[in-house]
């Protein structure tokens, strides 16, 4: 009974996966015949491609920041909104709302918000007399990636918050009562009860956020397409551009292989880190 799913999945996931390995050994523009070049793409990528390292750096930075802030904010909001009061439920509904929008919609909205001359953000800062904060958000190399990071966090914090709330509501109330009896402060309650008890949820949230950040193609493509000067480029966008703008199929295939390696590496590292915490 699992067969139809397994066949489709093998045919259109694993078979292409293998084909990708083969393409990575060629130079191919889809107009002329593919030319076998051995491991030249791999050598070029590692030794003669500053862009690759730049994108690698961007991608790791993006993932790190998104995972850090999204987890942090969603946990904080979850703690704030854990009780099922009417206001809290309304706020949860509101915070969750961006999750249902498409990345392209979110990208368009924030493209306007960040507009240096007309956008709401700079309007806000200049009205307050804080012209120094009115930056060229998406147009400047130093801020574009961070502006997109903010949007990504804005986009998905609500979703992660709901997961945390579900997790927090599982924590036995007696633990808090016992802590209160001991005269523990809120901070101590958090350190001794909430945080240790929510580590399993944190593992889920962080793993999901990591994958999500690697898949932020849609958002970045809609907002900056990786620019300016590739300062907000990540792997998925880079590979797309290598295929479609530059018609370098073989090289793009090589890039995807490194994409997978990095993704697996980051995931394993994270598992290891969190599991060690958990076991404590």
């Amino acid at each position, binding site marked *: 009974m699992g067969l139809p799913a397994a066949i489709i999945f093998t045919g259109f996931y694993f078979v292409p996966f293998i084909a990708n390995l083969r393409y990575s050994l060629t130079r191919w523009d889809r107009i002329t015949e593919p030319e076998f070049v051995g491991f030249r793409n791999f050598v070029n990528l590692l030794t003669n491609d500053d862009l690759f390292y730049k994108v690698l750096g961007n991608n790791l930075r993006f993932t790190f920041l998104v995972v850090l802030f999204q987890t942090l904010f969603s946990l904080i909001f979850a703690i704030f909104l854990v009780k099922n009061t009417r206001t809290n439920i309304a706020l949860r509904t509101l915070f969750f709302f961006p999750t249902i929008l498409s990345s392209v919609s979110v990208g368009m*909205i924030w493209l306007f918000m960040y507009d240096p001359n007309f956008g709401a953000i700079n309007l806000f800062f200049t009205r307050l007399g804080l012209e120094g904060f009115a930056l060229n958000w998406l147009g400047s190399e130093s801020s574009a990636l961070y502006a997109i990071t903010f949007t990504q966090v804005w986009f998905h914090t609500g979703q992660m918050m709901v997961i945390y709330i579900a997790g927090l509501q599982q924590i036995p109330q007696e633990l808090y009562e016992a802590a209160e009896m001991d005269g523990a402060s809120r901070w101590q309650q958090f350190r001794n009860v909430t945080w240790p008890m929510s580590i399993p949820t944190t593992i889920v949230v962080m793993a999901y956020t990591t994958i999500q950040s690697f898949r932020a*193609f849609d958002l970045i493509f809609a907002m900056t397409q990786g620019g300016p000067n590739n300062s907000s480029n990540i792997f998925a966008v880079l590979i797309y551009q290598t*295929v479609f703008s530059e018609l370098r199929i073989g090289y793009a295939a090589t890039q995807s292989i490194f994409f997978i390696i990095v993704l697996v590496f980051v995931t394993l590292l994270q598992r290891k880190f969190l599991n060690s915490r958990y076991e404590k």
Partner: protein
Amino acid sequence: MIYKVSRIVSLFVFSILIIIPSLIVVFGSTKTDSEVYNKPLALPEKWSLDNFRFLFEVSNVGRSFLNSLIVTGFSVTITLILASMCAFAISRMITVTGRVLFSLFAVGLAIPGQVNLVPIFILFNDLQLTNKLSGLVLINIVTTLPISVFILTAFFRELPKEMYEVSEVDGATPLRVYRSIALPLSRPAMGATAIFLFVITWNELLFPLLLITDNDKRTLPLSLLSFRGEFFSNYSMIFTAVMVASIPMVVMYLLMQRSFIAGLTAGAVKG
């Protein structure tokens, strides 16, 4: 005290951060472009649906809407059928096959199908599946199968084994057990998964961008992206298009908040 103040402040700030952009879009879709630019936060001078009418007139956003509906409908339905059958099989098989099946999709979950964009693009070209809605349905099924199998397997494993064993003793085939026992019981899980799949499929951009070039075959996110450059350089129109693309989701969300939140959370937790 510090707790209370910081709670109120941070909740307020995040609320504003969500409400303001939403209002800009809602108001923007009824404004003229220069109003959007010069008074982004003001109420429109006069509420009008001209932008919507114009959008449907000059672009084939209606067609894209239909395409999105078709693609999402078929993708979600087929994925659910395939995934639930597979999940049921996995949960019932303690044998090697079950474990192999499970790990097959585990790999797919850890390494999202997006990394395959180069070979998928070439394979779909060779199979002439580009510019076809059926091609999109196929790739959507492939990319959403792992997570669906995971959510549903977790659910089926929670069902008490006795329920199956009784009917197996009666000599029912696995397919029958699946249809008459597992499926009806899994309604809530299927519903949650369906919503999860609906949202991600409806909003998917990468594969349509890769595989669809025909104007008539575009899905909504793709149309939305093309509006930016092709027909308008005009934020009031872009916001109108954002509204059109989001309205079905928003309406469903408001009507079925609980299932939505449950669905989109299940996708993450069970994964």
